[in-house]
C-alpha cells in the first residue's frame, strides 16, 4: 500500500508539471497580451497610451521575454517560494485574490452537494425498488426535466419571479447593506436567506442526474443472486436493501466522488455570473478575457492539482469501500 501511494504521488507531480506547462502555453496562444488589452480598453474610452508607456509596461511585466523564460519565472516562483505572482488587472497577489473568493465558493458548493445527496439518494433508491410505480414515474419525469433545463435559464426564471412577484432581487449572496460589512450574526443570517436560491438552481441538474444514476446502479444490483441469498436468511427487506444492493451500487459513486473536489473551488461560473455571486467562477472568466495570465495560470494550476488529488482520494475511497479493490492494491 505504501509503495502504491508513493508511485501515485510521484505520477501526480509529473502530471501537474505537464498541466502547468500546457496551461501556460495555451494562455499565451491568443494574439496580443495584457498590455494590448489595456490599450484597446483605453482606445475605447478615447484615450491614447504612448508607445513608451506600453514598452515600459511590457518590460515591467516581463512580457517581452520568450515564452520559456516567462514560464520558468512563473513556475520557479511557485515551486521555490510558493508565490503565484501578481494579477496585472487587480495589482494584487494572485493568492489573496483567489482565497478571498474560495471561502464562499466552497461554502456554496458544499451546501449544494449536501442538498443533492440528501435528496437524490433516497429518491433514487425508492425509484429503483419501486420501478414502474407512480412514484418512480414522477421521479423519472423530474429527473429528465431537471437534466434538460439549462441552469442559467432556471436562474433567469427565478430572478424574474423574484423581482416580479416578491419585489426582491434574487441575485448575489448578500443584501446591499451587508456586502461590505464585517462578519456578524446579521450578515450570516442574510447569507442564509440568499443562499437557498443558488443552491437550489445549481443543485437541480445534479440532483436529477444523481437520481438517475442511483436508480440505474441499484437496478443492476437489485436482482443479483446474493440479494436472494440475503432474503433467504430472513433479513427484513429494508435492512437487506441497505446492507447489500445499495452498498454494492455505491461503488461507482465512490469512484467519482473525488472529482467533486475541483468543483468545490471553481464554483459554477455561468450561474455565478447570472446571479452575480462573488465566487471564483466570474473571477477566472474575467481574467481570461483580459489575458491576466498569472491569475489564469495559477488558478487553473490549483484546479488541476485539486483534480489529481481528487482522483487519488477517489481511488482510496473506493479501496476503503470495496475489499476487492483493496486487495488488488495490496497485491501491487
Amino acid at each position, binding site marked *: 500500500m505504501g509503495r502504491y501511494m508513493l508511485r501515485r504521488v510521484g505520477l501526480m507531480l509529473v502530471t501537474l508539471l505537464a498541466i502547468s506547462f500546457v496551461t501556460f502555453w495555451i494562455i499565451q496562444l491568443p494574439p496580443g497580451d495584457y498590455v494590448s488589452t489595456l490599450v484597446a480598453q483605453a482606445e475605447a474610452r478615447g484615450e491614447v497610451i504612448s508607445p513608451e508607456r506600453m514598452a515600459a509596461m511590457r518590460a515591467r511585466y516581463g512580457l517581452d521575454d520568450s515564452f520559456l523564460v516567462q514560464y520558468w519565472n512563473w513556475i520557479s516562483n511557485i515551486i521555490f517560494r510558493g508565490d503565484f505572482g501578481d494579477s496585472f488587472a487587480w495589482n494584487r497577489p494572485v493568492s489573496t485574490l483567489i482565497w478571498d473568493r474560495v471561502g464562499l465558493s466552497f461554502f456554496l458548493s458544499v451546501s449544494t452537494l449536501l442538498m443533492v445527496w440528501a435528496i437524490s439518494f433516497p429518491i433514487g433508491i425508492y425509484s429503483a425498488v419501486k420501478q414502474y410505480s407512480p412514484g418512480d414515474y414522477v421521479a423519472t419525469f423530474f429527473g429528465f426535466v431537471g437534466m434538460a433545463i439549462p441552469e442559467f435559464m432556471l436562474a433567469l426564471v427565478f430572478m424574474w419571479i423574484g423581482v416580479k412577484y416578491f419585489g426582491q432581487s434574487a441575485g448575489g449572496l448578500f443584501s446591499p447593506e451587508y456586502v461590505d460589512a464585517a462578519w456578524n450574526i446579521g450578515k450570516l443570517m442574510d447569507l442564509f436567506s440568499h443562499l437557498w436560491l443558488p443552491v437550489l438552481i445549481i443543485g437541480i441538474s445534479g440532483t436529477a442526474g444523481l437520481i438517475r444514476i442511483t436508480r440505474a446502479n441499484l437496478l443492476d444490483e437489485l436482482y443479483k443472486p*446474493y440479494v*436472494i*441469498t440475503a432474503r*433467504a436468511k*430472513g*433479513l427484513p427487506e429494508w435492512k437487506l436493501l441497505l446492507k447489500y444492493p445499495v452498498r454494492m451500487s455505491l461503488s461507482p459513486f465512490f469512484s467519482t466522488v473525488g472529482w467533486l473536489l475541483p468543483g468545490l473551488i471553481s464554483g459554477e461560473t455561468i450561474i455565478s455570473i447570472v446571479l452575480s455571486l462573488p465566487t471564483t467562477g466570474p473571477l477566472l472568466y474575467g481574467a481570461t478575457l483580459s489575458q491576466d495570465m498569472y491569475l489564469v495560470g495559477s488558478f487553473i494550476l490549483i484546479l488541476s492539482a485539486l483534480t489529481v488529488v481528487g482522483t487519488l482520494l477517489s481511488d482510496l475511497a473506493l479501496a476503503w469501500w470495496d475489499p476487492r479493490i483493496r*486487495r488488488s492494491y495490496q497485491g501491487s
Partner: protein
Amino acid sequence: MQQTRTSEPTGRRVLDTDAPYVLDVRDVRTEFQLEDGVVGAVEGVTLQVRRGETLAVVGESGCGKSVMARSILQLVDRPGKIVGGQVWVPVPPIDPETAKRRRGLFSRKKAPTIPVVTDPDAPEGMVDLLASDPEILRAVRGKRISMVFQEPMTSLSAVHKVGDQIAETILLHEPVTTEDARKRAIELLRRVGIAAPEKRVDAYPFELSGGMRQRVMIAMALACDPELLIADEPTTALDVTTQAQILELLKSLRDETGMAIMIITHDLGVAAQLADSIAVMYLGNVVEYGDLAEVFRHPKHPYTRALLASVPKLGQSRGRRLEPVRGMVPHPFARPSGCTFRDRCDFAQIGRCDVAPPPLLRDDDGHEVRCVLYEEER
C-alpha cells in the same frame, strides 16, 4: 478437504414413513407476467417432504423446478408472482428478542400474529406461509428452511467477509452475542470441510474457489440447524470433482443432523446418489412422484421413461445409441392443450390426451403418475 468417494453405492436408508411433514406444498402456482402475456412457470405443484427425507426434484431446464423451490420461501423476483396455493410448514417458534432483529426499519408492530386457520384441511400445528405475516415468513427463512443456490460465485456478497455473512444468519435467529456467532461461524466452516477456518472466517468470497464458496453457502444454510435444506442445483456450476465432493458433504451433513433435503437438479445421477424419493417435473407440473428406487426401476410416465433412456448406463453395450427425448420443450406461449407432454410422447392418444389434463393416479405404494395410460389399471 473431504475425501472424494463417488463409486460407493448408496446404502439403502431406512425412512420413517410416519414422520411428520416439514413441508407440505399444495397446488402452488407461480406466473411470470411478461409484456407478451402470462407464462405459468409452476402450474399447481403439490409436494410433501417428511422429517429427515431427501426429495429430488428433477426435470429439464425451464420446467419450473427452480421457480417452484423459490416459491416456497417467496423468493421469486419480479415479474414472477405466486398466484395460488398453500405452503404449509410447522409453526416457527418466535423469540421476541430475535424477532426484534428481523423487524423492518419502519415496522412498529409489537408481535407477529399467527393467522387463524379456517381451512378444514389445514394440517395441525402448521402455518401457511403464503397467507401469513411477513414476520412469520422471516422466522422460517434461514432458520427452519434454508437454501443453497446454483451460483456460488454470485450468491455471496462480494464485499462482506464470509464469516460475517454466516454470523448474520445466526444473529437474526438466535439470541447470541456477536462473538458467539463468530465462534459458531468458524465451527460451521470446519464442519463443511474448509481448512484453517479461523483464518478463512475473515476471507472475502473472491479469495475462495468455487467449491469453497459453495461450502460457505452450505455452512450459511446450516447455521441455525434447519429442518429442511432446499438445494437449488447446488453442483451445476462446479467442476465434476468438486461436484462429487459437495454431494458427499451434503450426504454426510444430512446423516449427521437428520435434516430433510429437497434437491433440485437436472442430473438424474445426482438424484440417484442422494435422494429417497423423486418428483419429476415437466412444464410446471409434477408428472411422476414416488420412491426413488421404485421410480428408477419402474418408471411409469412416458417422460420419465424417456429421461431414463437418455442417460448412459454402466454395462450398456457399446454400439447402442443413447435415445434423446424426442422434440423440444414447447414455447411457453404455445402450450399443447390437455397433457403438455403429448407432442413429444410416443404413446399419445388422439381424442384423449389433447382433450383434458391427465388425471393424477396413485397406487398403493404412493407412486403417483399424471398420465391416462394407467387409468385402466385401476
